[in-house]
């Protein structure tokens, strides 16, 4: 896999806080990661550990309280709203939201949502519709669904719309937040294959997921986030088959598979004791 070239994304010592005054809490801290062109980094970890927050910080949706973020070599940590807009309009980085329903305007037919990024970039409507349809077909959505509102689709259909919307602009870096969580295994394989194709075409991907199998299958490297810190970063297969940090072990151990039950309660408690030791 072509994990070469200069990094598309470099994050150093990222720190993010939420809330004001008394309710101010640190969510991310000391997070560093770099992603090269054609590289896929999987991010796994506890729910509420800050995975989506990490993505939002990289996209400038939340302001980092410390550290640096470089996209395509440019330091964006102190960007103004105007600079962000210019960067975004170039379509360098895109994001698949974790919750497809909330990230699609309930009053717009999915086709409209899909072509919005293209229209914003100044692509003509006709061409935008054409390109949008091509991507909807690519994620295996029936053309009769194009005119539906998001509320009129099933969970998995919406998720595929959300993925397609991000693909249409052909960005250099894509952050995918649980892009396959609502898909049956056949459709999941379809999306994962698309991701692999993108990677081979030189796109940098950050793949956030709770589905360890998918992450292991697609990612080159895996980062394990626990309580706002990367506790383990390493080769994908190694992290899954031979996790070192106690939390990573707890996580991999808790995953049920079709043939074997996950670690029992007692085993998990033992691992957790180790974690808190």
């Amino acid at each position, binding site marked *: 896999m072509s994990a070469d070239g200069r990094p598309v994304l470099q994050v150093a010592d990222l720190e993010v806080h939420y809330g004001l005054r008394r309710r101010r809490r640190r969510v991310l801290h000391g997070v560093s990661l770099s992603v090269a062109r054609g590289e896929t980094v999987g991010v796994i970890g506890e729910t509420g550990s800050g995975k989506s927050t990490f993505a939002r910080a990289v996209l400038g949706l939340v302001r980092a309280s410390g550290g640096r973020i470089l996209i395509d070599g440019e330091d964006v940590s102190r960007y103004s709203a105007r600079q962000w*807009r210019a960067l*975004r309009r*170039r*379509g360098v980085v895109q994001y698949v939201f974790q919750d497809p329903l909330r990230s699609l305007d309930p009053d717009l037919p999915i086709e409209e949502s899909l072509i*919005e990024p293209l229209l*914003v970039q100044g692509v003509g409507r006709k061409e935008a519709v054409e390109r949008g349809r091509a991507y909807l077909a690519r994620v295996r959505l029936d053309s009769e669904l194009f005119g539906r*509102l998001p509320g009129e689709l099933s969970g998995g259909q919406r998720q595929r719309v959300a993925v397609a919307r991000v693909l249409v602009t052909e960005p250099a870096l894509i952050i995918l937040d649980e892009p396959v969580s609502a898909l049956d295994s056949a459709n999941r394989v379809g999306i994962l294959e698309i991701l692999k194709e993108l990677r081979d075409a030189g796109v940098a991907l950050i793949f956030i997921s709770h589905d360890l199998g998918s992450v292991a299958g697609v990612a080159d490297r895996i980062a394990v986030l626990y309580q706002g810190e990367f506790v383990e970063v390493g080769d994908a297969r190694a992290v899954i088959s031979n996790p070192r940090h106690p939390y990573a072990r707890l996580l991999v151990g808790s995953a049920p598979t079709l043939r074997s039950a996950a670690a029992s309660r007692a085993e998990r408690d033992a691992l957790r004791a180790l974690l808190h030791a």
Partner: protein
Amino acid sequence: MVRRVLALPAGRLAVGILSVIVLLAILGPTLAPHDPLGTSALTLAGPSWEHWLGTDYLGRDVFSRLLAGSRTSVLGSVEVALIALVVGVVPGILSVYFGQVFEWFTLRIADTLIALPFLIYAVAVTALLGNGIPQAMFTVGVLVSPLFYRVARASTLAVARSQYVEAALISGASIGWIARRHVWGKVLPPVAVALAQTIGIGFVVVSSLSFLGIGVQPPAPTWGGLLASDLGYLSYQPWAPAVPALLIMATVWGSNLLADAIRDVSGEAGRALLNSRRVRARRLDPAEPIPAGGVAP
């Protein structure tokens, strides 16, 4: 938007009614065949060729008074609605964007206004600002503004924190683009519905204030005032209150229809309407019901 509203029978009906009312407000005073303030010995007369709607307890021509009063009434209630819009909607939207302190204060003020006893407040404001129609409108407008505050705040909250707005931002959309494409369609319908309600409240409240000698002074005619005085002579002319009441109802109904039409032409609600129609059409088969929209100009 305008074209789609007009495509609905209810939308055409609403626009028709409201145009008539607006015409009345503009031309009414000049059209009045008699002096609306001129009394005569002929009191409480029934309808006749001379007095189309009869005369009131002082012998004034009711038809003329209705026409003459339409401008004050319509302007009054529109003013109430506009003041409520400015005093309510603007802080409602801003409360979402301007930090917690602003949010806290505006919320408390809105709560206070809701709890305030209306009459005491009205009298106090008159004492402070003097007596007159603008002051009365201001009073009422401020009083109903919490409704607008709440409505505007709720719908803005829903949109502002939504991820689809963030998704548009990530794609590089400008604030203007987002306002046009995502916000406008969601804040407008609830505000329009609230506005329509307020116009109705405006008519009634402005005239009830007249009882207290606030705002419109007794001899000057308004629809609400006519209604009130007619009610006092119910035993002589039981049908008399019907006419001003009808006018008020028509205005309120027209505004509500328009608000509903605005809501119904867009997004999810629009789709729901379309779907109901398709289902109905399928059940009834070819015979599509003819809409009662014949009033449209």
